[in-house]
């Protein structure tokens, strides 16, 4: 047993990991740096926000006053930025896992090595997980330190739980990209399907706060089960997160089974 394939995948994705990671960390720092100014001008912001349609606020996760630390983080960090980046890494790299090697025609030689196809998929999945973990760790560190410095008054445990929840919700979408890539050998399709599903799930969860009719359907959305907002207020949904991890495992197992049967394109 060797970790060579996982390390190579991780090394190949180095630029992506650094790029996404730096973008996230820098944006979080910027958001936190302007927090004191936002808080001091809270009155004006409230007036502005009150004039926004409810749907808009729901979409950008504006739940509480932006003047409160939790409300600010929900709206500015966890509402859009963190899911975007973490989904970007998980989906982007998982879609490359087998499909990119197949499309660039390096897969024939890789498969000629004494390594099972299942092992290959698992190693590639582990590399994606490691990439998400690395960026999440950097994000969490900056979040905890920056929030303390900017005086957001949110306990560090809640920040860590929210960061973890943001990462976990990205995993099933990454695993979907892995599965579609293993089934089709097409990177574009893997990205398209996963991004589509992520967008749909996000909207379903966000808009169900407004539309009564949508509410029963939100159980279908991984974002509902991740409970990022609840985690920020000290009430993380561990069961929901565990469910997402199990779902990810099932999708990865499906990807391995699909790849075992796959006819590699020449």
């Amino acid at each position, binding site marked *: 047993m*060797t970790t*060579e*394939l996982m390390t*190579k995948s991780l090394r190949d994705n180095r630029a992506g990991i650094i790029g996404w990671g730096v973008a996230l960390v820098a944006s979080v720092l910027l958001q936190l740096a302007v927090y004191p100014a936002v808080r001091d001008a809270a009155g004006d912001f409230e007036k502005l926000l009150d004039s926004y349609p409810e749907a808009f606020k729901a979409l950008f996760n504006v739940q509480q006053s932006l003047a409160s630390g939790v409300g600010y983080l929900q709206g500015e960090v966890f509402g859009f930025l963190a899911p975007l980046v973490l989904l970007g890494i998980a989906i982007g790299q998982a879609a490359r896992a087998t499909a990119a090697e197949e499309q*660039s*025609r*390096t*897969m*024939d*030689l890789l*498969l*000629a*090595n*004494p*390594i*099972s196809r299942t*092992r290959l998929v698992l190693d590639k999945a582990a590399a994606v997980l490691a990439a998400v973990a690395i960026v999440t760790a950097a994000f969490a560190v900056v979040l905890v330190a920056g929030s303390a410095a900017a005086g957001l008054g949110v306990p560090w445990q809640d920040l860590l739980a929210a960061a973890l929840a943001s990462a976990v919700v990205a995993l099933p979408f990454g695993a979907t990209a892995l599965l579609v890539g293993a089934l089709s050998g097409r990177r574009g399709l893997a990205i398209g399907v996963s991004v589509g599903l992520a967008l749909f799930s996000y909207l379903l969860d966000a808009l169900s706060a407004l539309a009564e009719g949508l509410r029963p359907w939100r159980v279908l959305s991984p974002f509902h089960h991740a409970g990022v907002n609840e985690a920020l207020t000290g009430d993380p949904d561990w069961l929901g997160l565990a469910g997402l991890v199990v779902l990810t495992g099932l999708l990865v197992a499906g990807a391995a089974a699909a790849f075992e*049967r796959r*006819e*590699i394109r*020449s």
Partner: protein
Amino acid sequence: MNVISTRQLTKRYGDTTALHDLDLEVRQGEVYGLLGPNGAGKTTTLRLLIDVIRPTRGSITLFGEPMSPRLRGRIGYLPGELVLYDRLTGADYLRFCGALRDHTDLGEATTLAKRLDLDLDRRTDELSKGNRQKLGLVQAFAHRPDLVILDEPASGLDPLAQREFHAYLREYVDGGGTALFSSHVLSEVEHVADRVGILLAGSLVVEDTVASLKANALRELTFTFAEEVAAATFSGIAGVKAVQATGNEVLCRVTGAVGELVRTAARFPLLNVTSHEPDLEEIFVHYTEERGDDD
């Protein structure tokens, strides 16, 4: 012992049959050349053997077993369309393969690279097509496999490297290895292979040793006589396919033994005989034409 054995191996893509009922046996210690024009099913056969595509019907055994990841450790493979990871040097690439194959010793790889005049410190994306092909060959032999499956191995190699590779391949099988390679270059098969299979439109039309293929091939014998001899004299003789008389010269196309033909010719005032040895190209064209006549 058969290192490779296939039974009724068939591969269809929709309505197209890429390979039809292939029974292929490659014995331990031989070089088997799979010959055929483009699209005959050579690459399909090799990719089925290495298990990157799956048969529609039929079976494959390698070393008497079905393919498994463990078995792949005993096999070296060169794909027809070789794409190497870029941003790696040749040595890095070999180290990566070595780690996956649990064979980190680069001794054999270094030896072959030196013989082929390949610089392993250059990055793969800086290599010429010929040098990439050399690296492809080096990785196929690097872990001292018991069997190599090579798709058009000489493609892109300069004549010097080709000759060196052929010499290496001979040493490899003399040392107990077994090789199956495909080619559409007849001279290559002629030089290197112990046995040849000709694949046409997905079917193995003939399989024989190079020597025997040549013996059974259509040859041209030209007799020069001191006087005119009628073409009809030779046309009834066993093995004679065509006779053509021009002046004092008679050209006979013949397969198999030529004894009776020569004895008949000797009854006339015979001045000279020339025999044209067929190369595989002619054999190949002969089978292609024969095949074409059937359709």
